[in-house]
């Protein structure tokens, strides 16, 4: 999700503040018992889903209350920006809602501070483990913390979108998009040369997911050291450097965020952009001209494992009504409700067997259907490449060092060595 990659300058400050406060009050009360009857009033917080799904969630909460007459649920929704800050403030102040919508990188600092319930260790929660796909459960498991800290919720992945008009203008066959990284780089070279440097192929510098998809080992096995400066990583960055020199990257690529890269694609300034299945709707609405020329193909990867983003629902360990909170988190993420939600917007359920449903296996002829089926197929065996311990600050470190390499101020090897060294240092501090 592009939003989650937003860089907030404040994040490191807040994260350290959270750790401080957590140490101070750490290990305090552990709230109520997780087994037993679901009762009491609890709060349930989602992340930026109110604007389109207000009725859906109100209905869902109503249904849960009907099934569990002793539970009262208060639904809150937080806006998109600065969600991490909001969570750490709530965690530090002891006002974290009972059930919280998190992604693994958001749950990591909270779990580390001992505020989230370890689902693998809590019998009342662990018994639901088999209802979810192993990849999704694994996706919420945090390294070094011995367990999973969130019920898997919706998954997100997507194809590679490309602009057929720009392909045609450069004299390339619009029906033959690049299939793997080598072809991607050849296409980019051709596009840049034939358009006289006017059409860039990609809008952004390689992010950590790109390294992952390229087959670079990102971290050592116990997630204590970064390893993306291995020869494979250097190879990828060297290729990007050539691309940048030939005009294959957008002129502002060094500073573009994921959101801005998407924007460049909408402006038809770059020819290719990796996206999510739900982007199709955005293209249709905001760039009808582009939508007519939109090409869709599988996102290239060298590992055979596509990338996915994982959302989850965590339970607050200090919750007074843990049984009710676990019941609600499971209810929202159970098979029926996940499938309902995924029918409303192009995301994917993480419950076992859901993706075998004809809705995700049979192409109904529409563009949406095609993207949905192709993406659902990708999800089998997909992994979340972004290491959960990779903080916003470390992402910035990588981005800066990559920029230095592309500008030629450092060799790719040197740049990645430096990025790894800095990130390792940050990792030790946290």
């Amino acid at each position, binding site marked *: 999700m592009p939003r989650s990659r937003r860089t907030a300058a404040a994040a490191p400050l807040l994260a350290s503040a959270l750790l401080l406060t957590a140490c101070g009050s750490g290990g305090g009360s552990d709230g109520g018992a997780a087994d037993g009857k679901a009762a009491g009033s609890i709060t349930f917080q989602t*992340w930026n889903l109110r*604007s389109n799904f207000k009725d859906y969630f109100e209905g869902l909460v109503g249904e849960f209350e009907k099934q569990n007459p002793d539970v009262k649920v208060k639904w809150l929704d937080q806006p998109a920006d600065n969600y991490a800050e909001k969570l750490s403030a709530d965690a530090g102040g002891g*006002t974290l809602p009972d059930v919280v919508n998190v992604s693994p990188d958001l749950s990591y600092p909270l779990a580390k501070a001992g505020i989230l319930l370890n689902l693998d260790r809590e019998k009342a929660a662990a018994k639901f483990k088999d209802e979810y796909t192993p990849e999704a459960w694994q996706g919420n498991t945090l390294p070094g913390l011995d367990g999973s800290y969130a019920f898997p919720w919706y998954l997100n992945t997507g194809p590679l979108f490309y602009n057929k008009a720009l392909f045609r203008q450069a004299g390339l066959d619009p029906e033959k998009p690049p299939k793997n990284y080598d072809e991607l780089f050849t296409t980019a070279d051709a596009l840049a040369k034939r358009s006289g440097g006017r059409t860039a192929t990609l809008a952004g510098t390689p992010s950590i997911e790109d390294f992952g998809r390229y087959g670079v080992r990102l971290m050592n096995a116990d997630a204590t050291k970064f390893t993306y400066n291995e020869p494979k990583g250097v190879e990828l960055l060297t290729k990007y450097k050539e691309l940048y020199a030939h005009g294959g990257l957008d002129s502002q690529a060094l500073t573009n965020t994921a959101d801005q890269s998407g924007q460049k694609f909408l402006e038809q300034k770059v020819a290719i952009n990796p996206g999510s299945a739900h982007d199709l709707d955005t293209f249709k609405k*905001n760039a009808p001209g582009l939508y007519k020329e939109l090409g869709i193909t599988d996102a290239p990867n060298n590992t055979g494992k596509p990338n996915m983003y994982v959302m989850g629902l965590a339970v607050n360990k200090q919750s007074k009504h843990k049984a009710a909170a676990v019941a609600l988190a499971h209810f929202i993420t159970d098979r029926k409700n996940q499938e309902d939600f995924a029918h409303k917007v192009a995301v994917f359920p993480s419950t076992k067997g859901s993706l075998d449903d004809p809705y995700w296996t049979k192409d109904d002829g529409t563009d949406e259907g095609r993207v949905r089926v192709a993406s659902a197929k990708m999800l089998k065996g997909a992994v979340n490449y972004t290491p959960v311990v990779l903080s916003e600050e470390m992402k910035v470190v990588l981005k800066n060092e990559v920029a230095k390499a592309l500008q030629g101020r450092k060799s790719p090897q040197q740049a990645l060595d430096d990025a790894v060294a800095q990130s390792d240092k940050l990792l030790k501090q946290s």
Partner: protein
Amino acid sequence: MTRISGWEKALRYLLMLAVLGITVGPFLWQLSTSFKGASEDIYTYPPGFLPEHPTLGNYSGVADIIPVWDYALNSLKVALTNVVTNLVGASLAGYALARLRFRGRRLAGLAFVVALLVPLESVVIAQFTMMRDLHLNNTLTAVVLPGAVGALNVLLMRNAFANLPYEIEEAAVIDGANVWQRFLRIALPSVRGTLAVVAIFSFMGAWDDFLWPLIVLSDSDHFTLTVGLNYLHGTFQQNPRLVAAGTIVAVAPLIVLFACLQRYFFRGVGEGAVKG
């Protein structure tokens, strides 16, 4: 003053137009985007400023997604309270720092300067736990409190008062005026310009603040406009037309306020700054 040659005049106007274009251009683009219909490409190059199918639908769309008037009312309450507390607090403190003699006066002045240097992010958790201990979490009072008397405003007022000639006040002392009378009757009316600056700054500060209200408010009924408008960036879809319409709604009151107070504003900016 010497006469300026035609060329130089043309150059000056050209530069001014260029700066005008840079500052106003993006805003005009937002304005035109907010009127664009659903079938139009928004991200064309070069940008199109005239909507092909003008519509007001985006504004009602904003109102459909979020209770925009409730949020605007919350924002207005916060902003107006903030203006009042800042005017009263900053002028009292500023007068004390500029005119009253007491022990540690310099130290107190220094404390305000130092306070300017503390970034909000570093104290936000402490503020938050403090509000929780006061049981003010999730209320508009908590939104107002930390910014109720801004350090910058106190310094602005201090400078404005310090620049008034002593003789006038001395004359008032001889006429038998006490401190309160001198403050209310003589000093305050002479710094009207700076008061306008403080009013505008604190209104803008409160109206535009995002991080603190976001952190201290959890219930969406109490959200202020800036926080509420953030809902327009949906997780799964971006509709820049709605975002543009929301932006215009948020900016309009600031423009109106500035238009009303701009007379005083420019006088005030000159008043405190250089003289002395």
